[in-house]
């Protein structure tokens, strides 16, 4: 496939649920890792039957908290994937990790298992903010975890959340300056989003989440983020992702370029192009339901459908315009709307490509509503 093929592995467990997180994560005391490994292996073999032979460009362990996986579990999954498909020479194998000291201690084992990139959930470099975000690590632990990771993995990225409660523009500037000094080629910088059905969403709805930025401050923070990362040589390549040229996440680019990926694990989504049709898959959300489905039916999927051509196009535009590189012009047909948005200097296009301008990026949702 032109835009690559990757494997997404969802590990649904966390030590504690973060108040802002709306991902499929669960807190459980006991996890039978061998049993889970067997289930993932079974799923990889099953998806292989669907996908046929492919060159595997990436594996991504997401969660949940994949850094709660044992090294052997990770190694087993990687081995199964390598056996199922033909790994590319530059295959990227990323694992999301939390920066507690316990988890950092597993980094060597992950590296031995074949992981060559970690993405660390630092979230903040301020202890009081980490507490407010419900994180279990300190800022110092985070700094040490990034250092440790840099010893074990050729590629390291970490995440920060800004637009937090009681965070001034100057606070973010100071924190981002520190982060850029620590950064090793890749950073994910997310504006805090209050999602429904989360602890934050609940508190926000009841007016108990004071000190969040207004639209102007949010926009200033976003703009500052673009300016500072650009100046530091890590310009944005996607709305919330910044890297030195060439250090972009291969796996995540597959999503944004509408490549193919297999998704295994509870709640994992996948997209496979088969016979010219784009197939969307979703796995059972609840860990126990997924495990049971895999073990008894040898199939963890709960939903499988062929995307209508128009739906696939909308998805490709929605994902692709997040990228600085833009989308093929052939995906967009509404010429008058494009012209209108170009007049507002929110879009730019040439014969082959349509891109969102730096000015249009903070307004991407509005641009998409207009365009699609």
């Amino acid at each position, binding site marked *: 496939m032109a835009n690559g093929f990757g494997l*997404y592995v*969802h590990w649904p467990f966390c030590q504690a649920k973060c108040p802002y997180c709306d991902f499929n994560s669960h807190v459980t005391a006991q996890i039978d890792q061998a049993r889970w490994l067997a289930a993932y292996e079974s799923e990889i073999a099953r998806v292989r039957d669907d996908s046929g032979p492919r060159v595997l460009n990436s594996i991504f362990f*997401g969660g949940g908290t994949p850094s709660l996986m044992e090294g052997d579990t990770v190694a087993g999954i990687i081995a199964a994937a390598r056996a199922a498909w033909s790994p590319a020479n530059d295959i990227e194998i990323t694992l999301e990790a939390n920066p507690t000291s316990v988890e950092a201690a597993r980094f060597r084992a992950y590296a031995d298992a074949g992981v060559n990139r970690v993405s660390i959930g630092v979230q903040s470099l301020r202890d009081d903010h980490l507490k407010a975000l419900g994180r279990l690590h300190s800022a110092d632990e985070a700094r040490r975890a990034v250092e440790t990771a840099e010893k074990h993995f050729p590629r390291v990225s970490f995440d920060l959340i800004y637009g937090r409660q009681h965070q001034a523009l100057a606070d973010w500037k100071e924190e981002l300056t520190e982060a850029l000094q620590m950064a090793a080629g890749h950073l994910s910088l*997310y*504006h*805090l*989003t209050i999602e429904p059905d989360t602890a934050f969403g609940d508190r926000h709805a009841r007016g108990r989440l004071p000190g969040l930025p207004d*639209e*102007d401050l*949010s*926009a200033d923070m*976003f703009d500052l983020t673009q300016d500072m990362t650009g100046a530091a040589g890590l310009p944005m390549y996607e*709305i*919330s992702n910044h890297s030195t040229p060439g250090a972009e996440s291969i796996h*995540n680019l*597959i*999503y944004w370029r509408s490549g193919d*990926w297999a*998704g295994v694990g509870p*709640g*994992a*989504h*996948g*997209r496979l192009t088969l016979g010219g049709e784009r197939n*969307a898959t*979703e796995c059972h959300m609840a860990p126990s339901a997924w495990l049971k489905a895999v073990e008894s039916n040898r199939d963890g999927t709960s939903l499988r459908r062929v995307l209508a051509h128009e*739906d696939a196009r*909308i*998805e490709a535009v*929605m*994902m692709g315009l*997040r990228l600085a590189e833009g989308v093929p012009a052939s995906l967009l047909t509404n010429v008058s709307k494009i012209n*209108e*948005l170009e007049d*507002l200097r*929110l879009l730019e296009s040439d014969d082959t490509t349509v891109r969102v301008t730096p000015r249009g*990026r*903070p*307004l*991407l*949702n*509005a*641009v*998409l*509503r*207009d365009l*699609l």
Partner: protein
Amino acid sequence: MTDLAHIRNFSIVAHIDHGKSTLADRLIQMTGTVAERDMKEQMLDAMDIERERGITIKANTVRIEYPAKDGQTYILNLIDTPGHVDFAYEVSRSMQAVEGSLLVVDASQGVEAQTLANVYQAIDADHEIVPVLNKIDLPAADVDRVAEQIEDVIGIDATDAVQISAKTGIGIPNVLEAIVTRLPTPKGDRDAPLKAMLVDSWYDPYLGVVVMIRVIDGVIRKGDQIKMMQTGAKYGVDKLSVLKPQMVDIKELGPGEIGILTASIKQVRDTRVGDTITHDKKPCARALPGFKPAQPVVFCGLFPVDNAEFEDLREAISKLALNDASFSSEMETSAALGFGFRCGFLGLLHLEVIRDRIEREYDIDLITTAPSVIYHIYMRDGTMLELHNPADMPDLTHVDHLEEPRIKATILVPDEYLGDVLKLCQDRRGIQADLTYAGSRAMVVYDLPLNEVVFDFYDRLKSVTKGYASFDYQMTGYRADNLVKMSILVNDEPVDALSMMVHRDRAEARGRAMVEKLKDLIPRHMFKIPIQAAIGGKVIARETLSALRKDVTAKCYGGDATRKKKLLEKQKAGKKKMRQFGKVEIPQEAFINALKMDG
């Protein structure tokens, strides 16, 4: 047919929540009129909207057979009346159709605003009034104080007030006895030519037009050829019934009786509340006094948000018009809104009820334009035009002067809110005509321009008096004033649906309020939007809606695609509820909300 001595006709006067519906339910239940298993709460409120808003907009009736303590059986006819100033005329007709009223007062609350407004209607109709103190089982009930209040404030003897709890059923037999012993028997001459009042009418999907009548003189029978004296229309009576409250056919109705008839009448429009029904061949000499034709006083445009729904809207409006003689409509085109209807209503509540019914029962999203009254435009050539829609304002060079409709407003308000009420009336260009006291209540009479009242005057009045004021009005005529058309421009494009007639002296203030409101009601766009109010070419108020600065999803990976796409589709569906004016999208609610004034 029942002889006059065994008939009692009554209505129930009460403030909202004082237990009118519960008492009616209890009377129906305790006399076995409805079998226990068929009983449901608030038997008499038919429509969802009525139940929700706690108002009644059509009259309803129930016939109760009551074996009294004197060993004889009486027919008690209850007419439930509409309870809003928009329907004041309908209420007055219902009141004329009965001889007495039960005045229900919550013994824990006392007399309230609405009680007063309605009880004066009953007094106007020469009713015998039986005070009923409800909720005497509540710990907060103070029977003596409330009885005293009824005497002081309303001026009727409350020594024999019936004490009840409609909820528990305490005292209900005493209410029934009081109706028989204290309310007068109806008068009428069985041998005189037929004279009956058309109390109300409505459209029934199975029966067609149903007419509620009160027979004054003579006898009406199934098969009779009848004539409506106001319209001159003649019909054969197909069906004659009484409501118990389910329909029970009856052979004839004589003097004092209340019932319903159907007569192959095609539209409710063909019936007029307050009209006199008589026999075609042997008519009565004179029609009943007090008839007034239904006259819409408030006009506004109703447009479908989605132009494709115009035909659906046409159908909805014509169906609703079948059941509502006071609602008028004609097709209208707007440069900005496309095809729609200019509709006339009795008042704002009437407007809102119709609009809600179209949106709810026919599932059509509507844009409601600025409500307006009928202005008289005197042209230089001596002709006079009626202006129903500010958009039709002719070229000013041909206009000599404008006149606007005025009303006489009567407001009853407790002392403590008088200042606020006077201020409200002054703010609405009112001229005080009278101010008197009845007990601790002031009665204020104001001469007001109707256009200052139609929109939100009643809402404002309720809000500044915490619901304690009652309000009634009558049209008094037209008077010249300095009136101008104010236009609203959004992003330099005039939005005709928002243009309105205003008094020149108040134009700046109204214009400022409008543009400020619109600034909050229009969502930010990707560019900044000037919002202006103008008279002719002159801008009198201006605001700028700044451009949207940030709306972007922070995280969007493979697993998010499906969900984010759904969100995008939902937002796009939300956009469909907006109307495009040039490059600007204005939400549906903005049209009506922009007009609501805060002061």
